[in-house]
């Protein structure tokens, strides 16, 4: 198994930004993979498997981030994480009462 490094840009589409619930979802998804998952903002590089790290991005709606995956399952991991952003973390299903 070779070490792959893959990355893609994502946009925070949720009106509330990358708050506690999506950060939790993101960390849970990231932990499923062997690869290292990192999120890059303009000023920070954080561990995608740590909810505390993800929350320190304070990424508001519209923020562009780069997701970088490094490891044997990097490609699949990146696809899974990317799709969370593409689906806005299914936020619309939850919005009421949040």
């Amino acid at each position, binding site marked *: 198994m070779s070490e792959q490094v893959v990355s893609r840009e994502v946009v925070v589409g949720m*009106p*509330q*930004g*990358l*708050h*506690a*619930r999506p*950060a*939790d*979802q993101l*960390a*849970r998804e990231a932990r499923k993979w062997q690869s290292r998952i990192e999120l890059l903002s303009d000023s920070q590089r954080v561990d995608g498997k*740590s*909810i*505390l*790290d993800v*929350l*320190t*991005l*304070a*990424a*508001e*709606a519209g923020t562009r981030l780069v997701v970088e995956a490094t490891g044997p399952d990097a490609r699949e991991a990146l696809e899974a994480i990317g799709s969370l952003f593409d689906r806005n973390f299914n936020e619309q299903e*939850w919005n009421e*009462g*949040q």
Partner: protein
Amino acid sequence: MKFSDFVATDAIRSHVDAHTKEGVIREMAQSLVDAGSIAAGDLESIVKAIMKREDLGSTGIGRGVAVPHTKHPSVSRLVGTVAVSHDGVDFESLDGEPVQLFFLLVSPPDRPGDHLRALENISRQLRDETFCRHLKSAKGPMDIQHLLEEADSHGVAS
């Protein structure tokens, strides 16, 4: 955003009595009422909203820390408080660990940015193990207040 921007000093509790998720949330919300940060008449509605948010996924973010929160139209600015449970409370956390350290936040519905910046500050400070350890072993509300002030004055807060 710094702790002093949103933590109601008079509502800080160093020994919560409750041993359940709802109990702790209720005790903290009551402390905000007692401190004059939220109105007594809004207590039930705020507790209910925070519990509803917990139903969507625990705010136990790991390392023995939870950040129960809600938006609520009764507040015009972000208000919050800090509490410590020495026994720990089952909060269905991400890492399964009991929670000892609680940051409760109530924010105006139209200010998602403030909420994010408060979360950012809490998360960033809590990555410091020493800070966490000292908070968990605080003997009184003044200890907690001093720890928060110290974290604020380190100048890393944005």
